[in-house]
């Protein structure tokens, strides 16, 4: 007997026929009414779509920075505690933080994964590498995409890797306007 070498199941999709009626008893006597308890459920598709008008609020200069080739973090003015992901007020002091330019700081991979599956929005981009990046002199991390590595050969050696950052030329005003790539020896 030959074992199947390819998928034996058709992937399920949410599309299908438009249905305007289903079988139902022609006579609703007591027996038919009682039998309705056993009826299979009717499942209908209800589309739902919406455009949100999302404001980045006090974090807006970060996205403006990305559009202009700058990665901005924030820093508590008194303690110097530095957030690689912007945060308007400091956790410890409660004070409003100042903007700080992280663009030229040395950066390394702190943790990473390769996503072979993902949320619906990102499925077409799989596999992709997510990485938490640490910057010299910053106390917190930054989540970004890491390019230039083989997603089919991940290794823990990627942790600690020196990385450079690049910016999209045509900004999307998303955090992915900046992304990371491993420095070669010559870059370091």
């Amino acid at each position, binding site marked *: 007997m030959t074992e199947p070498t390819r998928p034996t199941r058709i992937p399920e999709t949410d599309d299908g026929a438009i249905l305007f009626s289903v079988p139902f008893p022609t006579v609703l006597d007591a027996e038919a009414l009682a039998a309705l308890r056993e009826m299979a459920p009717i499942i209908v598709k209800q589309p739902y779509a919406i455009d949100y008008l999302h404001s980045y609020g006090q974090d807006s200069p970060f996205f403006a920075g990305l559009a202009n080739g700058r990665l901005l973090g924030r820093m508590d003015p008194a303690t110097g505690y530095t957030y690689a992901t912007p945060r308007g007020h400091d956790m410890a002091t409660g004070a409003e933080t100042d903007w700080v330019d992280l663009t030229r700081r040395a950066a390394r991979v702190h943790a990473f994964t390769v996503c072979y599956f993902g949320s619906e929005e990102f499925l077409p981009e799989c596999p992709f590498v997510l990485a938490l990046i640490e910057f010299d002199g910053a106390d917190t*991390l930054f989540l970004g995409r890491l390019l230039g590595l083989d997603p089919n050969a991940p290794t823990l050696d990627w942790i600690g890797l020196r990385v450079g950052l690049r910016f999209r030329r045509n900004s999307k005003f998303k955090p992915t306007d900046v992304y990371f790539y491993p420095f070669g020896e010559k870059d370091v």
Partner: protein
Amino acid sequence: MRPVYVLSGGVSKFAKARPDKTFPAIVKEAYDYAIGDLGLEHRQFIELVDGSVASYFSDHFARQLMAGIMVQDYLGLCPKPGHRVEGGGATGGICFQEAWKSVASGDMDVCLAYGFETMSHVNTWKGNEFIALASDVSFDYPVGGFYSGYYAMMVTRHMKEFGTTVEQLAHVSVKNHRNALYNPYSQKHERLTIADVRAAPMVAWPLTRLDICVMSDGAAAVVLASEEGLTKLERAAGRTLPRVKVAGIGRGTDAMRMADRPHQSYDEFIAKNLLPHEDTAETRTYYRELWEHGFRYPGVHSFRAGRMASKAAYARAGITDPLREISFVELHDAYTSSEIQTYEDMGLCRYGEGGPFAASGAAFLPNVDYGLEFGNSQWPVGVCPVNPSGGLIACGHPVGATGLMQAVFALWQLQGAIGEHFGDDTLQIKDARRGAIHSHAGTGTYVTVSIMEKEA
């Protein structure tokens, strides 16, 4: 605060999809079971219950705002007081604690906690998207929002920091799936090996599909009461009810964005986060050496919220040696890795020891054959079974119901009634006296720990 008893509970069988019923009708299944287990009819219970707390995570999945009141209405609880709580994956645990507060404060004598989630209303990948919206939509979600990805980053850091292995993670999957073979309420019934777990499709390196819980439809309900409420229910039922009380609760929080987690110093950790039983010269030296090797707390590998929730719950329950003073733990194993991380947060072992602890057999049931060999280790096999029910990984994770499901299974353990409810007593822990339930949200943003105890 006055004593609070957990008296009964019910769970709908968790399933990938329950199109046969609407969510209020699924909650009704769990409610009816809980009331029936008290020996009461609905009409009797409704005369005695003072109000409720409703638990469900996502308005996106429900596509129905104010779904809580629809359940309240369907159960016939109107016009009694009620409210909905939400805290991501910890919603069920928070619901249990809010019901406890309603009774402990004197506001109610009898309170019903119920929870549900119907995640089958969208396909799996849209469901993952909905769940990922529980990450910062300005900075985290747009980068590739996917919770399995977030947890996998914690894993790589845990592995790098402590030498944790994927085989150690797989031990958790083998354990929880095997336990679930004896739990008729669980969604999955699979007999797995370490090799099976590793050979499953890779989802987010190094987590495979068998390292990750599934989405589910389901509901759970729990009845809590004061001494006065207990007396009223006993009078109505015409019998004495087993005494299981809530010995202590704790709750902690942490930064929404994993990137923002502090990287505390050794001194700060010792001052704020050390558990009392860890306060020995040997353990201080152990932690000092971790810091000398670059460890920072909580970082992305540990859950400070889980540690703080445990610390508060243990202090209130008078627990000084959790591994030996807790008979079992039902914890939030959305991932095999998060079970290992939680061993450490709850002080079953020290930070960094979760991997060897998982493989030691300490968290396994001593009477179940897992097809694994456990070597000699500092932790006795079966000393503190974790997720004897099968946990989220095998039982399923209908978010709003999950924390309450844990309370129901813990109650049945402490009542010695697992055989009665499961139709098989394999999972009954001998002489179970005290159980801990642990509910967890986000990347460790809200965590609850509640201690339940059989009254002597």
